[in-house]
């Protein structure tokens, strides 16, 4: 499995670098203006005071947009970082097997003594490592910039939030991986299905804070188990993260079940 894993990481090295640079630049641009915004927080809070709870819930789960915790959550950890990392995970889930199959290079690899199980596990491991690496780099960059701009949120809590973002993204990436593993129809649908599940979950969870009957359905989506403010204050119940892990393992298992017994697409 190791050569396949190393080969995949090698082929993706440029994209790993560019994703890391891009997400880090976004984090820098987001956090660098915190001192200016913080100094005007009273006025800004007043002017945003008229927003409804439902609207505020779409941006933050702290209720406060300009305190160190509120700013970090609303600008980064509540939506944008999970969104960016999920886009990476979903695109990897779609392309790790899908692109090789489209290009027929998969036949070159499977004409060697390599089982489909080994092949699929290597691709799943490569996707996990890439998302984890970009997520970890982003988290470390966040910690460094927070220190530099006196945004006082403890580093271990930022690290915990980063870990949860990685797990959340992996669960959506695994869904895309499974749908893409179905073959031709799945490959074109995988980005759409995983994005709708991820973004839909975010909207339904946010609305469920104000609309009671959505609380039940919201539990079917991973975003319900991701609580940025709790993560950033060290009060997160990590049992919630089991949902991400279970979902990722479940979809990977489904991907294996369909991929091991289906025809590869022809060239």
């Amino acid at each position, binding site marked *: 499995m190791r*050569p*396949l894993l190393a*080969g995949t990481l090698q*082929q993706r090295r440029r994209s790993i670098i560019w994703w890391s640079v891009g997400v880090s630049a976004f984090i820098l641009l987001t956090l660098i203006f915190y001192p200016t915004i913080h100094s005007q927080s009273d006025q800004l809070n007043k002017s945003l005071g008229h927003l409804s709870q439902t609207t505020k819930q779409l941006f933050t789960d702290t209720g406060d947009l300009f305190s160190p915790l509120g700013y970090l959550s609303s600008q980064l950890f509540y939506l944008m970082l999970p969104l960016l990392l999920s886009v990476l995970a979903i695109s990897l889930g779609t392309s790790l097997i899908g692109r090789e199959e489209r*290009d*027929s*290079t998969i*036949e*070159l*690899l*499977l*004409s*060697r*003594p*390599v*089982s489909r199980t080994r092949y699929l596990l290597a691709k799943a491991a490569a996707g996990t490592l890439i998302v984890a690496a970009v997520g970890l780099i982003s988290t470390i960059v966040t910690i460094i910039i927070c220190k530099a701009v006196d945004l006082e949120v403890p580093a271990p809590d930022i690290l915990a939030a980063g870990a949860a973002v990685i797990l959340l993204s992996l669960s959506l990436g695994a869904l895309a991986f499974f749908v893409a593993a179905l073959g031709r129809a799945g490959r074109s649908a995988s980005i759409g299905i995983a994005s709708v599940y991820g973004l839909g979950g975010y909207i339904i969870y946010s609305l469920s804070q104000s609309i009671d009957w959505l609380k039940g359905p919201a539990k079917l989506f991973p975003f319900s188990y991701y609580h940025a403010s709790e993560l950033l204050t060290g009060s997160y119940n990590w049992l919630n993260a089991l949902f991400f892990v279970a979902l990722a393992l479940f979809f990977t298992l489904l991907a294996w079940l369909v991929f091991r*017994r*289906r*025809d*590869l697409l*022809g*060239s």
Partner: protein
Amino acid sequence: MVTKDAAITIEKLSKRYGAGQKFAVKDLSLQVMPGEVYGFLGPNGAGKSTTIRLMMNFIFPSGGRASILGKDAVKDSVEVKRQVGYLAGEIALYQKMTGRQLLDYLSQLHPGSRRYISELAERFQADLDARIRDLSKGNRQKIGLIQAFMHKPKVLILDEPTSGLDPLMQEEFFGLLKETTKTGGSVFFSSHNLAEVQRICDRIGFIREGELIAEQTIADIAQAAARTFDITFIDKAPAADLRAISGASVSVKNGRQATVGLRGDLSPLFKVLAKHKVASITQRELNLEDEFMHLYKGDGQ
């Protein structure tokens, strides 16, 4: 009859891509013996590549089975591939890699297959340091052939292997095939190039619409083939007597020259010739292509 020590055994192999769809391959049975080069011929869409993809377990059979060196192509797929060298018809390589990087990568997936690379690269005069996307079709094909041969496989499954190779490199390739079969290796070879099939194959299977319609050795084909004779008579050609021969096609030129095509037993022709004065008789070289077209068009069953 199925022989146990065959290198490749295909028994009633069928493939249908969906319920209600036509069979791409239907009830195909054949064997390739150790040391044999088996040519697999057929028009486009006949089922050649489907058969090869079934043997490589890239697709699953709807019925029947294929086994290579006694191992099932589906259940023992990984074991089978330790002993098989494969070249796809339209070979897909990683465009951004160099030939050397690609072959290194593939040899890591098949430990012990690295040491033969340099020798093959030298024989094929392959440039292993250029990026694959910058190589011509012929040079990419060389990389494809090196990856198929580099682990010295006991069975080679090759789909249009000489496509894009110049004549010199084709010679090198034929030499390599001979070396493989000399040591007991077997080759399953799909091709459109009848001249090369005639030259290197021991036996040929013709496939049409997914079914094996004929399987013959080159010697059998030569024996059963229509032979064409150009005959010059001293006097007028006996056109009526020649046309009276069952199955003969006859054309007469200049009154004295006759061209006679005849399949199977030639004695009726010679009986006619014995009664007349013949100035010269020449037999045209066997045209495998005509034989192929004869089967291809469906009048060979």
